[in-house]
């Protein structure tokens, strides 16, 4: 007979494993399906300083592993597989994965978000060889050279500051005339002598035949274009939700985020969205873990009414 889990959680980041922790502690049979390794975006974070309880900070990878261990302690299971499609309309819900079919009474979407690209010419072609999305990973290949960072939010400024310590020169390209990043980051950036900011500018194209040779920028105020020749380009223009594989009936907003309020309930009864993947004002580890706890509250209600 096929096993039907009380809940299957898709995504093993902070939201996913907090849901798993609360669900397994509540005695629900719980499976987390993770396509790569646990932690999600958290695993990519060097040091986490805004998650309480760690007075000296903690590296994201370790925190992710601890969250997994916290949930598995109460019986939550983890499976490494990618969910390809789902049937949410029939019960139990069916998930088609790279490791076969899975069944559950409730489903939690905790797939998070991934870095957004600009969608300009040359970007895909030079991704990983001249164009990069992870400053912490690839910055060291540009030691003592000139790099260009695109973006104006917190992560763009963090990337620019990180690269400024490694590289000879950093050019930060921002499409507005002021930063929307936190004050502390903007101040730190202005103290860096080797960072030059190009305001009101957008990157229009990445140039080069065999090798990345430069970029074309356009000033959005006067329309003037200029060509620069940095050694490397780092794109840091925010994220987009990992929701492409989800079925139609799960309502999403114009940007692809799953429409769900603080209850984490979605347009489908018994299906919840936690963490960065849902519509919310602040995407942080603390807000993702809060979602996980709340989701289980409504999940228990649903299971009591419909299943148990």
């Amino acid at each position, binding site marked *: 007979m096929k096993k039907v889990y009380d809940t299957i959680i898709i995504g093993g980041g902070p939201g996913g494993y907090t849901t798993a922790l609360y669900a397994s502690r509540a005695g629900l049979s719980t499976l987390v399906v993770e396509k*790569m*390794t646990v932690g999600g975006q958290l695993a990519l974070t*060097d040091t986490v300083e805004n998650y309480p309880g760690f007075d000296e900070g903690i590296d994201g*990878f370790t925190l992710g592993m601890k969250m997994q261990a916290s949930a598995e302690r109460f019986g939550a299971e983890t499976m490494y597989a990618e969910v390809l499609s789902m049937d949410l309309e029939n019960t139990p819900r069916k998930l088609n994965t790279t490791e076969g079919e899975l069944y559950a009474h409730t489903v939690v979407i905790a797939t998070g978000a991934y870095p957004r690209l600009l969608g300009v010419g040359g970007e895909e072609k030079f*991704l*990983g*060889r*001249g164009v990069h999305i992870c400053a912490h*990973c*690839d910055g060291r290949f540009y030691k003592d050279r000139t790099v260009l960072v695109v973006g104006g939010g917190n992560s763009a400024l963090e990337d620019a500051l990180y690269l400024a310590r490694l590289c000879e020169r950093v050019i930060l390209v921002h499409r507005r005339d002021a930063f929307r990043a936190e004050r502390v980051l903007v101040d730190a950036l202005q103290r860096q002598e080797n960072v030059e900011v190009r305001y009101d500018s957008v990157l229009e194209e990445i140039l080069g035949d065999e090798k990345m040779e430069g970029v074309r920028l356009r000033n959005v105020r006067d329309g003037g274009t200029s060509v620069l020749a940095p050694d490397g380009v780092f794109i840091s223009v925010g994220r987009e939700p990992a929701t492409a594989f989800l079925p139609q009936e799960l309502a999403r907003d114009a940007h692809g985020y799953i429409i769900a309020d603080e209850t984490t309930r979605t347009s489908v009864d018994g299906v919840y969205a936690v963490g960065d993947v849902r519509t919310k004002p602040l995407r942080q580890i603390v807000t993702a873990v809060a979602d996980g706890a709340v989701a289980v509250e409504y999940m228990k209600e649903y299971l009591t009414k419909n299943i148990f």
Partner: protein
Amino acid sequence: MSYIKVNATNFGEVEKSEKVVLLDFYADWCGPCRMVGPVIEEIAKEHPEILVGKVNVDEEQALASAFSVMSIPTLVIMKNGKIVRQVAGARPKAQILALLENA
């Protein structure tokens, strides 16, 4: 079988291997590398017919530049000493296995 740590000294053997070779260029401080690392180790255990090697780019800079590695993790698939695929970025196990199958 488990993976081998590839360095300048033993790279010659890797190149001469009759098996399909999967190389993972990584660094300890790189988040996506730590995500893909356990996946690579699992593939090494489950697929003895593949020679799996890990190259630490901090320790083996010459190898990294010989493969023009500018982004980590970078995965390289070799056959008979020649590169058949080279991809940058972490990816799920199923995708890596598909790359190996099509190599």
